[in-house]
């Protein structure tokens, strides 16, 4: 397996740029081949710093490979020629300078071609993103040129991904609705699109032409085009659009037309394929190859004849159906598997690995934070499982130096240490999170469809980004029979699972939250050997979202309460009377703000309202009448508090297990749980050991019910809690590890 990194270089990186998107797509495919590596650029657009690094930060080792994406003259060529490692070239083609004669762009275009020739003989890997591009590389003197397609993900162009408002607006317009997606630049021949539109209007007066893509409003050529479009009527220049708007444009169109006279591949043609729009394209350069015989290609711009063909394509349903079916089939050649296969054939073979096999299973645990200091959540869950497995399995933990998940600041020293029977390897996070900026980004990103670059950016902004952790994991892969990833959400899991898919186990701790809609997470749910879920609700949720998910089972956790003395907790915090307890992160996302609001309403309404005790740390600083915030507490204090509470409140809507509920049940304390989340609702239904709420009135009612019927509720809670035994959990883990051991090729 891979023991060298594959970095990529792009001249500049900004959202919407095709070469940058190609590099991010390649990076994903490279992870599927087991290669780590980062993307670097000469210029990085603001907001993209989390996924692309400035070239000055590139550090390589002799065996590393740096793939440089070439599409225009770039000073990176000189840099590439002198890198002390293996070098590769990915050629995206360069528009012939004849289209730009007399403009400032002509010279960089010719320079780019001269650089292509200059690189011949100085690169170890030469890749064209089409056969056409590969032929140009060969003509420029490159040898052993391979073709690797670009990634096109059809699911990102499904009807459900479209911006509903724009889709409705565009679909209401007249018919035939013709779409072109390209920048308004000379070689794309928008003037020819207008000529076709003119011809089409003669036979279909309500014809619409929509052009999506950036334009230079001040440019004389654009002004002339705009004036002609205005004369013709029913022409819309949408300019640059978001991904969801782009999908809306495709999905509203009845026909996609390309008049471009030079394409090195033609990604919009494939996006139109994915959007189920028939494509009619001028067969210039790599266009026929891109289409692979699907859609329709023409070789002469006879606009009247093309208008007649277009009219037939729009009105003839069987014809459209046949074209769309063929186009869909063509997309297989641009799937993640096809890209990975192409890269596998193009890259140098990694040195053979030396597997080690021991009698006692060896398992790596990968989790974003780790340590005794973490009270609840997936990280505490990971530690509990690791400690429970330790008597029968060698467990090594790969984690970050962070203690705080809001900032990911490196507060613990990097390196290897011990945590009882566990070996813990800590790696520094490469950047810290600004939680406010991240929350703003999340608001923009959630709820609307995004492209791969935007999802990758969000993931990196969320953190923790720890490339050294992934490098170490890949280097140590043969030491482990299985690698268990905790929490689907964070980058170490999203990047780590495809890197070590043949031995990956994932404990997703997934719940119904906006990021689960990201297509990027298919790598986490579809690639590993098995998913170990916490509840039947979580398993059902994953299957509904990812129908091709890996085999899964409900494993959960065991709960072993410490002997508790409630009065010790009361004495320590000078607490009298009944109290409700919450233990966990103090965050709005956990429902704590809402809980405080409901509790304060109860305090105002009832003189004997119980105190609300909150244990844990986070961005919220709880305040209010009869509110006691005790901060982080140790294990013994937690169990003392749990056993003495009137009820434990589980306010989060987003739970995959609710360890807090299980711990409360284990000591016979009923819970008051938010029923908006399926998991807590399921725990309440299965246990019958508490009451649910979803608004202020039902919260007050739940407290009343628990107050009046605590005895029988406590009995049922204890009985349900007793079912969660560690021995069952460990047996399930051992059998999952054994299945992975048997399946890994050795």
């Amino acid at each position, binding site marked *: 397996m891979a023991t060298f990194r594959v970095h990529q270089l792009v001249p500049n990186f900004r959202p919407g740029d095709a070469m940058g998107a190609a590099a991010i797509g390649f990076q994903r495919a490279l992870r599927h081949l087991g290669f780590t590596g980062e993307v670097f650029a000469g210029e990085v657009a603001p907001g993209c710093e989390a996924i692309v690094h400035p070239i000055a930060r590139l550090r390589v080792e002799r065996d590393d490979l740096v793939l440089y994406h070439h599409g225009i003259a770039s000073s990176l060529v000189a840099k590439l020629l002198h890198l002390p490692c293996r070098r590769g070239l990915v050629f995206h083609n360069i528009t012939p300078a004849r289209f730009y004669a007399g403009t400032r762009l002509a010279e960089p275009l010719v320079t780019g071609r001269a650089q292509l020739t200059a690189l011949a003989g100085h690169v170890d890997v030469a890749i064209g993103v089409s056969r056409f591009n590969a032929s140009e590389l060969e003509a420029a003197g490159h040898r052993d040129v391979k073709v690797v397609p670009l990634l096109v993900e059809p699911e990102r162009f499904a009807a459900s991904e479209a911006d509903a408002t724009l889709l409705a607006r565009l679909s209401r317009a007249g018919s035939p609705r013709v779409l072109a997606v390209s920048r308004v630049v000379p070689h794309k021949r928008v003037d020819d699109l207008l000529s076709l539109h003119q011809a089409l209007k003669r036979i279909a007066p309500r014809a619409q032409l929509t052009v999506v893509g950036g334009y230079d409003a001040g440019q004389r050529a654009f002004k002339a085009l705009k004036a002609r479009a205005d004369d013709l009527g029913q022409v819309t220049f949408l300019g640059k659009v978001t991904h969801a708007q782009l999908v809306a444009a495709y999905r509203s169109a009845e026909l996609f037309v390309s008049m471009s006279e030079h394409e090195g591949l033609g990604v919009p043609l494939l996006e139109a394929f994915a959007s189920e729009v028939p494509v009619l394209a001028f067969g210039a350069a790599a266009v026929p190859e891109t289409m692979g015989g699907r859609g329709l*290609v023409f070789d002469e711009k006879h606009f009247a004849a093309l208008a007649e063909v277009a009219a037939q394509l729009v009105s003839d349903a069987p014809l459209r159906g046949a*074209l769309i079916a063929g186009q869909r089939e063509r997309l297989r050649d641009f799937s993640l598997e096809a890209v990975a296969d192409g890269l596998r054939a193009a890259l140098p073979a990694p040195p053979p690995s030396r597997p080690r096999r021991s009698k006692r299973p060896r398992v790596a645990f990968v989790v974003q934070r780790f340590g005794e200091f973490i009270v609840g959540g997936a990280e505490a869950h990971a530690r509990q499982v690791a400690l429970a497995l330790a008597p029968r399995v060698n467990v090594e933990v790969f984690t970050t130096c962070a203690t705080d998940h809001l900032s990911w600041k490196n507060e613990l020293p990097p390196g290897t240490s011990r945590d009882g029977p566990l070996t813990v390897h800590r790696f520094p996070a490469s950047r810290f999170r600004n939680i406010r900026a991240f929350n703003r980004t999340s608001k923009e990103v959630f709820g609307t469809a995004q492209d791969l670059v935007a999802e990758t950016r969000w993931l990196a902004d969320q953190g923790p980004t720890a490339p050294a952790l992934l490098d170490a994991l890949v280097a140590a892969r043969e030491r482990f029979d299985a690698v268990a990833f905790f929490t689907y959400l964070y980058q170490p899991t999203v990047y780590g699972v495809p890197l070590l898919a043949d031995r990956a186990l994932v404990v997703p701790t997934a719940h119904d939250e906006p990021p689960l809609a990201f297509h990027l997470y298919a790598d986490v749910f579809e690639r590993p050997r098995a998913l170990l879920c916490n509840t039947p609700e979580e398993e059902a949720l994953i299957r509904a979202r990812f129908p091709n998910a890996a085999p899964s089972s409900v494993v959960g956790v065991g709960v072993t309460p410490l002997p508790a003395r409630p009065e010790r907790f009361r004495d320590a915090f000078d607490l009298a009377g009944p109290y409700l307890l919450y233990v966990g992160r103090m965050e709005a996302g956990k429902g704590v703000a809402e809980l405080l609001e409901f509790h304060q309403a109860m305090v105002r309404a009832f003189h004997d309202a119980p105190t609300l005790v909150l244990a844990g740390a986070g961005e919220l600083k709880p305040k209010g009448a009869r509110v006691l915030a005790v901060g982080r507490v140790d294990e013994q204090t937690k169990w003392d508090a749990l056993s003495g509470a009137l009820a434990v409140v589980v306010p989060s809507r987003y739970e995959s297990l609710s360890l807090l509920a299980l711990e409360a049940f284990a000591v016979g304390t009923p819970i008051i749980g938010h029923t908006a989340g399926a998991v807590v609702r399921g725990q309440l239904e299965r246990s019958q050991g508490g009451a649910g709420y979803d608004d202020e009135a039902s919260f007050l009612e739940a407290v009343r019910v628990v107050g009046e019927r605590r005895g029988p509720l406590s009995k049922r809670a204890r009985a349900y809690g007793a079912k969660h035994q560690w021995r069952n959990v460990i047996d399930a883990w051992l059998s999952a590890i054994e299945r992975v051991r048997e399946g890994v090729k050795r």
Partner: protein
Amino acid sequence: MRLFGKDVTTQKLLEVAKERLGARGLLPPSEDSGLADGVEPPVDAFAFAIEAMAEHVDVTRGLPIETHRDGLAGQAVVLAKRAFRRVGQLFINEALARQVVFNGHALDGYATLGAEVAKLREQVAGLEAALTKAQAPAAKAPVLKAPSAPKAPAEKPKRPRRPRTPPR
């Protein structure tokens, strides 16, 4: 004009289009292909670099004036740039004089290197061709063996007698 696509009968599609064009009194498309495309010819890196450097060796000469701005703002920018060049050209020449001289030397140096590289490449190509030619017969020529006659014991070549030194 031709139509290509393997999922539908393109000929029929084109025939219908031609019929409709005829009915409207319009000329049908030609039968020939309008495509004349292949890969772009490669650009010789050295030759291009020298040409491009020569083009830009005089850095006092400005690039064509352009702007991406629309309307009045665009016109104002163009005017401002033009005015700046007209007024400032003397100072530009003065400030960049040494750079122009340096660029000239850099261009000469690069051109010399380029010529050397071209000559060396030619020599290497010649040597490689000669090597190939020299190796070719040994590797490729069929080895014909004549029916072997019994070998006579090789006679020891007689050493020519050294002429005696004539008596003095």
